[in-house]
């Protein structure tokens, strides 16, 4: 036994040893902790050195940024002139140029209403009001803004909608509609009522069992075969319904996973307090279950966002479709890489934002371990 430095019971709180924190410790622990990790680190550095400069050169240093036609591009690097020229179409499709302000106005309203939701200091009442506005009133406003036909706005047929705008319309509608629908389906699948239960199971398994392409194809090609032209809704509406039902089936299974993870005691405590089925679901079970499956929900959202590109096959031109269309323009042949890179960046920004937001949401909603 060594000599006691401090009287028994009075050992002070000491700072951690120097070499366990800081940059050097991090490098040592994460990159060079053993020979194998060291080897991988060196290999990774080698790959980075070999590829990054070429990429940077293509994307920035040798790239051409200004101009109006393909002749302004030297073709040594990327030709961002291509994006420049096609920018409006990539954003709004064939939406009439003098009406584009309607889309921009909706973006501004959405952003202005959404920003306070992320500011902690804003009171809960205002946040609830804004969230309700975004979920209920805003879609109606959007419909009148985009489609027009009243308030002196000229009609813009949905066949003219396109680009990132169309991607957002489909993705946001799908996301906003599929979550509540998915929750209802998940609850239905766990219901004690045999009829409700079977209907939900059949619905979920049907939509999960077929590819989205098939859904879209049926919506746009098969549907008109059975339903007379005058009665059949707009192609975009059909696609929206298809996408929503499709992803709600996935959502239902994600939510069901969360419901199953809630201990039986929570249901019992809620029941014992006199809460009826809907109150105990809304106040006790769903808040916990949804919180638990945020990663899965956002995963489905991201999947849906990217799946919107499939509407190309029914003749709707979303961001990717527009990029492809631009690259097949006779004057701009050979610029598909720039188009794809731009579309990829566009998708990445949205999907990555969703992913980061879900992580911060998870952290914020974490109220310590469950009992």
């Amino acid at each position, binding site marked *: 036994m060594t000599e006691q430095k401090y009287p028994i019971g009075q050992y002070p709180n000491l700072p951690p040893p120097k070499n366990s924190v800081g940059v050097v410790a991090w490098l040592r622990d994460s990159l060079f902790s053993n020979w194998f990790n060291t080897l991988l680190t060196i290999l990774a550095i080698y790959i980075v050195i070999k590829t990054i400069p070429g990429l940077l050169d293509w994307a920035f240093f040798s790239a051409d940024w200004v101009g109006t036609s393909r002749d302004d591009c030297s073709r040594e690097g990327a030709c961002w002139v291509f994006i420049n020229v096609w920018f409006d179409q990539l954003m709004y499709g064939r939406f009439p140029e003098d009406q584009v302000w309607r889309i921009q106005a909706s973006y501004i309203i959405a952003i202005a209403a959404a920003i306070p939701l992320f500011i902690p200091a804003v009171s809960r009442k205002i946040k609830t009001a804004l969230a309700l506005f975004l979920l209920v009133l805003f879609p109606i406003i959007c419909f009148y803004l985009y489609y027009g036909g009243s308030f002196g706005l000229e009609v813009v047929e949905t066949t003219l909608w396109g680009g990132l705008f169309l991607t957002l319309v489909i993705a946001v509608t799908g996301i906003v509609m599929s979550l509540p629908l998915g929750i209802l389906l998940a609850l239905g699948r766990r219901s004690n009522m045999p009829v409700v239960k079977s209907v939900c199971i059949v619905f979920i398994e049907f939509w999960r069992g077929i590819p989205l392409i098939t859904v879209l194809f049926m919506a746009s090609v098969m549907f008109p075969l059975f339903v007379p032209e005058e009665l059949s809704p707009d192609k975009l509406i059909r696609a929206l319904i298809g996408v929503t039902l499709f992803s709600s089936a996935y959502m239902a299974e994600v939510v069901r996973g969360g419901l199953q993870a809630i201990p039986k005691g929570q249901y019992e405590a809620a029941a*014992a307090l006199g809460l*009826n089925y809907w*109150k105990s679901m809304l106040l006790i079970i769903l808040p916990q279950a949804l919180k638990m499956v945020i990663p899965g929900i956002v995963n489905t959202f991201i999947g849906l966002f990217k799946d919107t590109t499939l509407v190309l096959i029914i003749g709707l031109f979303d961001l990717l479709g527009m990029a492809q269309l631009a690259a097949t323009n006779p004057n701009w042949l050979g610029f598909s890489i720039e188009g794809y890179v731009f579309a990829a960046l566009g998708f990445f920004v949205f999907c990555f934002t969703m992913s980061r937001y879900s992580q911060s949401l998870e952290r914020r909603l974490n109220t310590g371990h469950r009992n």
Partner: protein
Amino acid sequence: MSENSQRELSEEVVIQLKQMHKWYGEFHVLKDINLEVKKGERIVVCGPSGSGKSTMIRCINRLEEHQQGQIIVNGIELTSDVKNIEEVRREVGMCFQHFNLFPHLTILENLTLAPMWVRKIPKAEAEATAMHYLERVKIPDQANKYPGQLSGGQQQRVAIARSLCMKPKIMLFDEPTSALDPEMIAEVLDVMVTLAEEGMTMICVTHEMGFARKVADRVIFMDAGQVIEENNPHDFFEKPENERTKLFLSQILGH
């Protein structure tokens, strides 16, 4: 001597189980249970694990469904009628072995949720009631914490307070102390003793025999789905009649 055995009890019967049977599938878990509880009566239920104690008290607020016989609580018969079930549950509080607090809500929110959503009490009033009961269970300073930040004993006291906020006429306890570390048992039992002294009608499944001696009007011993013996605490502990009761008592008091 347990002074409570001489207590004057009201004649009003608030819980009545008549020839009640329950099965889990093929398994006959409760057999011919007959029980009458008077207003203000304190009943302790004990018996070996798996004897059906939890199942029996869970039938009283219909967390479990019985298949034969009658259960009448506060004059309302429990059937599959959802209205009746909800009415009974409003008047019957329950505490569980594992507390079952709502982990996503603060302590205060745990306490105010049911009064606000079931009894439609305004928020301010519900919060005042909640604070009153938190003081009663001696943890008003924890009101804004989450259940996960509390010790087991504190959580169970919150759970009791949560039930009391609904102003129940009857309280059911299912082994409220058996998931607790020994040093926390006393703090929970103290709360239960106070509650008993104030005249709450209680049915407690517990193996805390000290508690049974102190507050019970009647002790009920169950084994294999049947009520084997039923007596006042003094006679129950001093002169058990059935062999199985004797064996059980020797096992839990033996060491």
